[in-house]
C-alpha cells in the first residue's frame, strides 16, 4: 500500500482545525457532566424508577408507570414522606439486564436517588441487584420472582409489595386437585419463569395426592403452538397453562381451536392474558375455565372500599381497562405491587426517620422489621405478612372462574397456604 504525501499535507491543516474544534466542543460539555453528577437536591425524596418502557416488558411497564404515578400523587397529597415530597426519576431499562445494571448506577451515582424501585422482569432484577448491593442502594423490586427469597440476591434487595411465584403456585395446588382433577398436564414456557412453575407446582400437586402426567415446555420465541398440543395425554383432567410474551393471545386461541367443544378442565395463570381483553374474539371457549389472579381484574360483588379507591386513583374501570380507553387493558394482577411497595417505603422511611442516603442501611432494617400489613388503602390487594429474613412478602391469592367473559372470584387462599420454609436469612449479611 502506498501513501500520497501531498494529500496528507493539504488535508492535515484543515483536519487539525476540525480536530481542535471537536476537542473544544467536547471540553465545552464538561460542565454539563458535572451538573449531571451533582444534580442531587436535598429537598425531595428521589425514587429511581426502573421502568420497562421498551422491550418485551413494555405492556407491563406502561401500567407500572401509571400505578406508580398515582401512588406518588396520593403520597404527596398526604404530605409526602417525613414531610418531604416524593419525586420519581424514571429510567427505561429496555427490559435488558445490562442496561438495568447501568440504570441502577445512574440512580445511585448520577441522579442521587434515595432508593431504586419498580423492576418487574426477573432477568433484569438479577442483572441489576448485584450493583444495587455494591452501591448500597435499597432496591425494591416488584417482580414476583423467587430470586429474592431464594437467597440469590443481597441485603439491599427487597420485595415487600408482591408475592413470589413459589408461594403463588403452591397455594393453587390444593384447589386444583380438590375441585378440578388430580391428573394434571402442564404447558409452560421453556425458560426460568416456566421452570419455576413446573418445579413448584409439580411438587405441590404430589403433596396433595395428585399427579402431573406431562410437562410440555414451549421454546421461547415460538409463534405457533398447535404442534405441541397433541402431546397432551388423553387422560388429562386438568390442563395447567402459563405463557408470557407477545404471542400469548395466539397461544390461548390455538389452545381453544385444538380442543373444540371437548376440553378438560383448564387452569391458567392470568399472565397468559395480562393486558389482553377477556372478550377478544376466539377466547369465548375460556368460559368455565379458571385463572390465578394476583388481584381480581374485574370488579367483584364483594369489592372492598380499598380496591375501589385504588382503582379510581389509577384510572381503571370495572373491567380492568383504562378509564380513558376501554381497549387499553391493565396488568391488574401485578401492578398493585408498585402501589403497595411505595406505601411500604413511606412507612419504613418514616419509622427509620430517613433523612438522606446516609440512612439507607437504617431504611433496610426498618423494612426488615415489618411484619403485618393489614388490608387498607396502602395494601388494596389484601392483607400481607412480610418476612424480614427472606425480604419477601406473603399474601392472599385469588382464583377466578370465567363466566360470560367476566372473571368471577371463586376462591381466596389464606396467607398460610403460601408459606414455605425460609431459604435464606439476609439479616445475617453485612449492611
Amino acid at each position, binding site marked *: 500500500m502506498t*501513501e500520497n504525501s501531498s494529500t*496528507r499535507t493539504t*488535508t*492535515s491543516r*484543515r*483536519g*487539525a482545525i*476540525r*480536530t481542535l474544534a471537536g476537542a473544544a466542543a467536547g471540553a465545552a460539555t464538561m460542565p454539563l*457532566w*458535572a451538573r*449531571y*453528577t451533582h444534580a442531587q437536591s436535598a429537598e425531595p425524596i428521589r425514587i429511581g424508577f426502573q421502568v420497562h*418502557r*421498551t422491550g418485551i416488558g413494555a405492556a407491563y411497564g406502561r401500567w407500572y408507570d401509571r400505578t406508580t404515578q398515582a401512588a406518588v400523587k396520593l403520597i404527596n397529597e398526604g404530605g409526602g414522606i417525613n414531610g418531604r415530597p416524593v419525586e420519581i426519576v424514571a*429510567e*427505561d431499562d429496555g427490559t*435488558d*439486564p*445490562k442496561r438495568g*445494571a*447501568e440504570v441502577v*448506577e*445512574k440512580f*445511585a*451515582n*448520577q441522579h442521587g436517588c434515595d432508593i431504586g424501585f419498580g423492576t418487574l422482569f*426477573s*432477568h433484569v432484577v*438479577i*442483572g441489576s*441487584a*448485584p*450493583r444495587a*448491593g*455494591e452501591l448500597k442502594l435499597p432496591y425494591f423490586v416488584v417482580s414476583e*420472582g423467587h*430470586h429474592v427469597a431464594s437467597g*440469590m*440476591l*443481597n441485603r439491599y434487595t427487597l420485595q415487600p409489595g408482591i408475592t413470589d411465584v413459589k408461594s403463588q403456585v403452591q397455594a393453587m395446588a390444593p384447589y386444583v386437585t380438590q375441585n378440578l382433577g388430580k391428573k394434571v398436564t402442564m404447558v409452560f414456557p*421453556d*425458560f*426460568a*419463569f416456566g*421452570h419455576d412453575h413446573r418445579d413448584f407446582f409439580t411438587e405441590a400437586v404430589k403433596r396433595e395426592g395428585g399427579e402431573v402426567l406431562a410437562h410440555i415446555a414451549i*421454546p*421461547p420465541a415460538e409463534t405457533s403452538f398447535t404442534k405441541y398440543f397433541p402431546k397432551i395425554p388423553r387422560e388429562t383432567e386438568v390442563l395447567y397453562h402459563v405463557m408470557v410474551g407477545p404471542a400469548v393471545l395466539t397461544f390461548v386461541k390455538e389452545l381453544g381451536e385444538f380442543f373444540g367443544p371437548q376440553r378438560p378442565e383448564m387452569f391458567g395463570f392470568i399472565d397468559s392474558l395480562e393486558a389482553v381483553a377477556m372478550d377478544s374474539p376466539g377466547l369465548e371457549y375460556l368460559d368455565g375455565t379458571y385463572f390465578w389472579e394476583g388481584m381480581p381484574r374485574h370488579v367483584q360483588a364483594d369489592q372492598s372500599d380499598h380496591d375501589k379507591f385504588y382503582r379510581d386513583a389509577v384510572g381503571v374501570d370495572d373491567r380492568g381497562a383504562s378509564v380513558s380507553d376501554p381497549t387499553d387493558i391493565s396488568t391488574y394482577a401485578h401492578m398493585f405491587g408498585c402501589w403497595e411497595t411505595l406505601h411500604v417505603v413511606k412507612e419504613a422511611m418514616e419509622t427509620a426517620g430517613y433523612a438522606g442516603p446516609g440512612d439507607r442501611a437504617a431504611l433496610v432494617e426498618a423494612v426488615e422489621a415489618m411484619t403485618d400489613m393489614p388490608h387498607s388503602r396502602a395494601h388494596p390487594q389484601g392483607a400481607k405478612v412480610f418476612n424480614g429474613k427472606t425480604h419477601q412478602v406473603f399474601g392472599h391469592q385469588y382464583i377466578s372462574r370465567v363466566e360470560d367473559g367476566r372473571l368471577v372470584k371463586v376462591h381466596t387462599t389464606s396467607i398460610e397456604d403460601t408459606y414455605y420454609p425460609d431459604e435464606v436469612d439476609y439479616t445475617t449479611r453485612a449492611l
Partner: protein
Amino acid sequence: MSAARRSLALHGGLIALLFALQFVLPDYHHGNLARIMVLASYAVGYNILFGYTGLLSLGHALFFAAGMYGMGLTIQHLGFTPAPALVAGLVTGIVVSAGLALLALRTSGVAFMIVTLMFAQAGYLTILYFGEYTRGDEGFVIQQAERVLWGIDLSDPTNRYFAALILFAICLMTCLHLVQRPFGKTLVAVRENEERVRMLGYDTFAHKLGAMIVSGTISAAAGAVYGLLFGYVGASFASVQYSIFPLLWVLLGGAGTVLGPFIGTLFMFYLIDFSSGITTAYMLIAGVALVVLTLFAPQGLTGELRRRLWRWLP
C-alpha cells in the same frame, strides 16, 4: 518519529490517560468507563475479524457468552476461584471459536454471516435448554465473596476499574502488535484481495482460522471479565443484539483501526445514555446518529481521522 513509534506513543498514551482518569472522574462516569473498557475489549476482538480480515460475523455473542459462561458455570457448579474460572472462560472461548471457525470458514460472504448467526442462536438456545444449570434467561449472580481475585475484591469500584483497564490494555496492545506483524498484514491483504494472497502462496484458510480464534478468544476474555466484574451471568448476553453491538461499535469507531473499537463503544454508550435522558425514543436518536455517521464518515470516527489527519494510524 517512525509510524510504529508514533502509534505506540498514541496507544500507550490512551492507556495512560485512562489510568489517570481513574483518579479524577466522578463516580458515575468512573463506573461507566470501567464497563466501556470491557465492552471495548469485546469490540477490539470483533474488529480483528471484521475490520482487519474482512469477515463479517453476526455471531460474536456466542464467543462473549462462551467466556462468560465458561467462567460463571465453573464458579457456580465447580467452586472455582476467579483465576482458574477466568482461564476456563478463555479455554471455552478458544474451543468454541476454533470449532465454529472450522465450520463457518467453509463459507464466505453472506453465507458466513448466516452461518455465524445461526450458530450463535443455537448457542443462545442451548443456554436456555440447559436451564437447570444455567438458570436460562434469568441467569445467575456471582456473589461478592466469589469475586475476590488474589485477595482483591473485584466488586470494589477502584479494583474493578483497574481490572477493566488491564484487560483493555492487553487487548489493545495485542491488537496493535498483531496488525504490525506479518500475520496482521496478511490478514489485511486477505481482506483486500483473498485470491491474490492465495496466488502468492499464502495459506489464507490458516490465516482466517487464526484471526477467528484470536478474535473469539479476546471476545471470550471480555465476556468472562464482564461477568466477574459486574456479578451477573445471563442468557441475554448470548442473544443476537449482543452480536450486533460490536459491529455497530466498530463501524462507528472505525473498522480496521486499533483505536476505533474504543472510540465507537465510548461514543455509542454516551449517545444512548444522554439521549435516554431526553426522550424514550432514544434508540431513534442512536439510529439517526448512525445513519448520519455512515453518510458523512463512512470509515467511522477513527477512520476519518486517519483519512484526514493521521495517515499512519494502524
